[in-house]
């Protein structure tokens, strides 16, 4: 145990003292989180912009709709010109009781929304003008749906990606350097078991992953980003740790084959980057074609992503642990076994 402990301590010290590693493992992914988080903070809440000419109850009612941003124009020609040029989806020209709507036909969806909005306002105004109480009443209340806002989506994804990068790069690099500098040889000549050497690296990798999780979730939870963890967030812990283990085994595999630091960096890049894009780190994979979604199922990062999202922000129950947990565990065992078989202590 003392070999495990001292090698873990040595690894932790090396990590903390390595400014470049700290940057790539903590700051770099954090930059993505912050930039994307701020960029997409208001996404999905784009207001419908309308040109309004004239003043009347209809125009006022339009201005009071939260989802509408009105721009007032003095004459109809200027307003219609804005629609023609594509700057605005529609123009409402109110002249006494005559309400005229001109809308851009290019975007069917927006045209529909604009038509619906304006006609509902006109209908309401008509009913109000009759002085009669409406026969049908509409009760409105909002439901928290499962579609996520940007930070809810980005935090589990970028955290998983960061853990994957740190696990693969850090592990591969350490083993390649240790072999090159003959540290592995030196360890081979010390009375320590290979298992405790490997476990110390697992310990360092998991430790780094936990630091990443605390920093990322902490910063995303700041009011300016507004991450809110779901009630079952703690179920993400096993997914998280299994994911980190899975990437450790990939790193070990690369570290077994690669002869130089450059080769290990390139190999790690080839493994991690495409996996990150296809696993929905930066954008949801469900917008991709079906076959690509199927392909993405082979990536451990995809399952770590899904699992982290399910528990961190979607609040799913323990039954949702089975699939990502099982796949990550299986992946770790299989790749770990292969890596242990091909692992070389010697440089030649």
């Amino acid at each position, binding site marked *: 145990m*003392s*070999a495990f*402990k*001292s*090698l873990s*301590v*040595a690894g932790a*010290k*090396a990590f903390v*003292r*390595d400014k470049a590693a700290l940057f790539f493992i903590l700051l770099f992914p954090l930059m993505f989180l912050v930039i994307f988080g701020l960029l997409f903070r208001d996404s999905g809440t784009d207001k419908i912009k309308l040109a309004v000419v004239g003043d009347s109850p209809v125009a006022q009612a339009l201005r009071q709709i939260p989802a509408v941003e009105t721009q007032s124009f003095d004459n109809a020609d200027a307003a219609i010109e804005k629609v023609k040029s594509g700057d605005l989806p529609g123009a409402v020209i109110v002249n006494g009781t005559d309400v005229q709507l001109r809308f851009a036909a290019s975007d069917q969806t927006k045209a529909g929304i604009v038509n619906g909005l304006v006609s509902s306002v006109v209908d309401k105004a008509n009913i109000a003008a009759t002085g009669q109480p409406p026969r049908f009443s509409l009760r409105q209340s909002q439901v928290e749906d499962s579609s996520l806002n940007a930070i809810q989506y980005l935090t589990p994804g970028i955290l998983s990606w960061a853990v994957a990068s740190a696990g693969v790069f850090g592990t591969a690099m*350490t083993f390649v*350097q240790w072999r*090159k*500098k*003959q*540290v592995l*040889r*030196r*360890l*081979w*000549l*010390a*009375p*320590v*078991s290979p298992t405790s050497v490997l476990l110390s690296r697992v310990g360092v990798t998991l430790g780094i992953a936990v630091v990443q999780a605390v920093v990322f979730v902490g910063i995303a939870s700041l009011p300016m980003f507004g991450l809110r963890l779901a009630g079952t967030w703690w179920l993400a812990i096993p997914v998280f740790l299994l994911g980190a283990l899975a990437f450790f085994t990939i790193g070990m595999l690369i570290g077994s084959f690669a002869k130089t630091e450059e080769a290990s960096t390139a190999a790690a890049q080839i493994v991690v980057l495409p996996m990150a894009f296809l696993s929905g780190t930066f954008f949801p994979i469900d917008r991709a074609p079906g076959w690509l979604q199927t392909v993405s199922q082979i990536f451990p990062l995809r399952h770590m992503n899904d699992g982290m999202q399910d528990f961190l922000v979607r609040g799913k129950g323990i039954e949702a642990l089975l699939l990502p947990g099982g796949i990550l565990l299986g992946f770790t065992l299989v790749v770990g076994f292969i890596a242990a078989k091909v692992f070389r202590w*010697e440089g030649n």
Partner: protein
Amino acid sequence: MTGNGGDAIVVSGIRKSYGDLTAVDGVSFTVAEGEFFGILGPNGAGKTTTLEMVEGLREPDAGSVTLLGQNPWPRKVDLLPRIGVQLQASAFFDKLTAREQLETFSSLYGSGTRNIDEMLEVVGLADKADTREDKLSGGQRQRLSIACALAHDPDIVFLDEPTAALDPQARRNLWDVLREIRSRGKTIVYTTHYLDEAEVLCDRVAIMDHGTILAMDTPAALVRGLDAPTHIMLEHGALRLDEVRGFAGVDDATDDGTTLTISTRKPAPVLGALAERGTLDGLQVRTATLEDVFLELTGREYRA
């Protein structure tokens, strides 16, 4: 286990080939406990491969190695605490200070950290204890790696070219370190390509070239066995050549216009004759060295 005068290492007819290249071709030697044994030869002579087989890092293709009574191959975990190994490249952990390197290595052996300060003192790095490994000079790194090999107090220490690539001053410092280790009763096996150094440090040396041992004995015996003349050098024109050739014991005398060189196998009477004539000023005596031994054995100049 030290001090009973037994054999620490017995190597018998070991061979190792890498493809077509025969790195070690039938090497045998014995190292007694407490002995300072040097393996010397030019680069590519097979020194490192020999050492690696003795340490148990590589399996010999043929022959046998007995290290403290055991075959070191395959890896014997109970044997490892009794040997200390300094590898050719400096094997250190990333970004740790000198003290932390020693702490890490000694904890791998389950030894306490109590003699770490002493080790730093022995290798002259006490004032560099808190300096990170990558900030140390070449000589300091070598000394630290020797300290790391010694941290768990092994019986046998293997040092692979500890003085390679060091400046003369750093080399001299390291010699003191090696002598100090020797005085602690350790058995030392070390490789070097510096013949002068082996001559100064080793109890016995094996001269290797092309994977075989050409000669093995104490440095003094090797040089004596050469029956090479001693050269006495005087300033040009100090004496007439025919006069010098008449001295008892002089084999030959030459004057190249700068230096008058007298070759002799009986230097005492020659020096006596020179003293009588009052020509000892600026006199130099050069006896044969291991370089001459190497030249004699291989027929070529020694190139490190």
